C-alpha cells in the first residue's frame, strides 16, 4: 500500500515522529524554562550514552557482533577509576590542584586499562569464534557480560558504590541562566564527550589504522589481501571502543557520584538502542543516536513519568527495528 509514494509503514513512522515533535513543541511553549532545563539534563546523559554507543556500533560495524559485554566494560571503567582515585589525596569539598592532577592522570589510565581488558576479552572470548555461526559469539558476549558483572559484584557487593565528587561543584560552579540551572559538571560532560568523539572521527577518517578498520568492515578478504592484518584491526576496534567506554564510565562516576555492579546492563541496552537508532555500524549515527536517546529519556522522565522511560526507549528500539531497520543515518555497511 502506498500513500503518495510512501509505504504505509513509512507513513506511520512519520506520523509518530511528527506527533512526538508537536507534543514537545507544545511543552516548550507552555513552559520554556522547564523545557530548556530538561534539555540540559538530556544532553549530559546523551553525551554519556553516545560514548558507550560508539563502542557497540564500531564492533558491530567490523564483525557484526552485538557486544553485550560493552556496557559492563563501561561500568568497570567507573569502578576502576574510583579505585585509582582512592590513591590520591583528593578533596570532595573543594576543588584542589590534587583533584585536577588526579582527574588528568586517571582518565588516560582507566581508558588504557579498560582498552587492555577489552582486547583481552576479544582475544579469549570472540576471536576463537571468528568463523562460528553468528549466534555463538553473541551468546558468548552475554556470558562475558555476566562475568564482568560478577567480578564487580564480588569486588564491592550488590550495594551502590560511592564515586568521589571531585569535579568543581557547589555555589561557585553553578549558575542560573534565565531560570535554567546549569552546573560545571553538565558542561564538563558535554565538552569531554564532544572532544573524545571528535578525536575518534579524526582517527577513523585520517589514519592508516582507521582506514584499515573501514576496509575490514567493508570486505575482510579484500582487506587482508591489501596486507591488513584483520585480527589486529579487530583488536584495535575493541581497544578504541573500550577507550571511550572507560572514559564514559569515569565521566558517569564524576557526574552522578554513584555506581553499581549491573549499571552496565541498563546503560548498555540504552546505548545499544542509541546505536540502532542512529544506524548500527554508523559512527556519526551512534553519536547522534546517543544524544537523541538522552534527550528523549529526559523528556519522557519529565513529561510522561520516569517509570515509563524504559518503555519509551525500548519502544523506540522496537519501532526502529520494525520501521527503520537501518536507523536514522542508515547502516554504513550494507548486508552482504
Amino acid at each position, binding site marked *: 500500500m502506498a500513500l503518495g509514494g510512501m509505504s504505509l509503514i513509512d507513513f506511520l513512522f512519520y506520523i509518530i515522529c511528527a506527533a512526538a515533535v508537536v507534543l514537545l513543541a507544545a511543552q516548550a511553549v507552555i513552559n520554556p524554562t522547564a523545557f530548556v532545563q530538561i534539555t540540559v539534563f538530556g544532553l549530559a546523559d546523551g553525551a554519556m550514552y553516545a560514548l558507550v554507543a560508539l563502542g557497540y556500533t564500531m564492533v558491530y560495524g567490523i564483525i557484526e557482533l552485538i557486544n553485550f559485554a560493552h556496557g559492563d566494560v563501561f561500568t568497570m571503567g567507573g569502578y576502576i577509576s574510583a579505585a585509582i582515585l582512592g590513591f590520591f589525596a583528593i578533596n570532595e569539598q573543594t576543588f584542589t590542584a590534587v583533584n585536577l592532577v588526579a582527574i588528568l592522570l586517571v582518565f588516560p589510565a582507566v581508558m588504557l586499562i579498560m582498552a587492555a581488558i577489552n582486547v583481552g576479552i576479544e582475544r579469549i572470548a570472540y576471536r576463537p569464534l571468528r568463523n562460528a555461526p553468528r549466534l555463538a559469539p553473541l551468546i558468548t558476549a552475554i556470558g562475558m557480560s555476566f562475568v564482568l558483572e560478577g567480578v564487580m559484584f564480588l569486588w564491592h557487593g550488590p550495594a551502590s558504590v560511592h564515586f568521589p565528587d571531585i569535579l568543581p561543584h557547589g555555589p561557585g560552579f553553578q549558575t542560573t541562566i534565565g531560570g535554567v540551572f546549569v552546573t560545571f559538571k553538565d558542561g564538563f560532560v558535554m565538552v569531554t564527550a564532544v572532544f573524545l568523539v571528535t578525536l575518534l572521527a579524526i582517527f577513523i577518517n585520517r*589514519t*592508516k589504522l582507521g582506514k584499515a578498520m573501514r*576496509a575490514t568492515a*567493508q570486505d575482510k578478504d579484500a582487506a587482508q*589481501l591489501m*596486507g591488513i*592484518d584483520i585480527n589486529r584491526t579487530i583488536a584495535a576496534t575493541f581497544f578504541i571502543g573500550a577507550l571511550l567506554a572507560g572514559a564514559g564510565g569515569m565521566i558517569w562516576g564524576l557526574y552522578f557520584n554513584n555506581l553499581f555492579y549491573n549499571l552496565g546492563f541498563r546503560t548498555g541496552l540504552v546505548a545499544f538502542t542509541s546505536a540502532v537508532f542512529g544506524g548500527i555500524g554508523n559512527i556519526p549515527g551512534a553519536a547522534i543516536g546517543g544524544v537523541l536517546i538522552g534527550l528523549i529519556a529526559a523528556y519522557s522522565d519529565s513529561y510522561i513519568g520516569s517509570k515509563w522511560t524504559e518503555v519509551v526507549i525500548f519502544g523506540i528500539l522496537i519501532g526502529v527495528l520494525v520501521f527503520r531497520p537501518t536507523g536514522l543515518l542508515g547502516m554504513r555497511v550494507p548486508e552482504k
Partner: protein
Amino acid sequence: MSLHIKRGEVFALIGPNGAGKTTLFNNVTGLFQPTAGRVVFDGRDITGSKPHQVARLGIARTFQNIRLFDFMTCLDNVRVGRHVRMHATLWDSLFKLPRERREEEKTTEEAMDLLRFVGIAKHANQYARNLPYGQQRRLEIARALATDPKLLLLDEPAAGFTPQEKVELMQLVKKILTRGITVFLIEHDMKVVMGISERIVVLDHGEKIAEGSPDEVRKDSKVIEAYLGKSA
C-alpha cells in the same frame, strides 16, 4: 599438477568453468589453506601464510567478481592498498606526528599516480560503487598495484568488457609489465589470453592438460577437446 612462473612474464591459466583456477588463486594468496602441495614464491615456501603476510611478500590480486571497498572513494581504495608499505605506528597515528603526516601525504600522491596510471584519476573522489563497471576493474587493479607487488594475480580481468575495453586492458597489462611486475592471469577470453600471454597452462578438473606458448596451446588436441570444444 605443478606450475612455474618466471619473473617478468605474462602467464595465463585457462580452463573450463569449475576447473579450479580461482581455487588456485585463493590457495596462493592464503585465503584458503591448501590441504596438500606447496606454494613457493621468490625461493621462499609461503604455503599456509596468512593473506596479509602474502601481500607483504609481494603478491597482489584482483577478484573475478570485483570486490572494492564500495563505500570509500577511489582514492581511499588505493590508499588502503598502500597500507602494507606504510610505517606509521599507532602512536604516530593517534598523535598525528609529522612523520605520519608526511607519510599520509606521500601515500595520497602515490595513490593519485596509480589512478592516473590506470586512467581513472578524474574519478578520484567518487565512491567506488558509483563507477562504471569497466572503471571499477581498473580501480581494483590500481588498488592491487598499490601494494607494490612483484607478482600480480588477475582473476578474469576482461570479464564483461567490450572489445574496445579489452584492447585497453591489454595495453594496461603491457604497461604493468614495464614496471617490472610479473602478471599471472586467469581469463576466459581467448583473444585477450592469446594476445598478451607468453605462456599458458590449461587446467581441467584440477589437472594440467597442456602448457606452452599461445600457438602451441591453440594446436593442442586435448585442449581443443576439453576447453575450446570440438568446433574450434
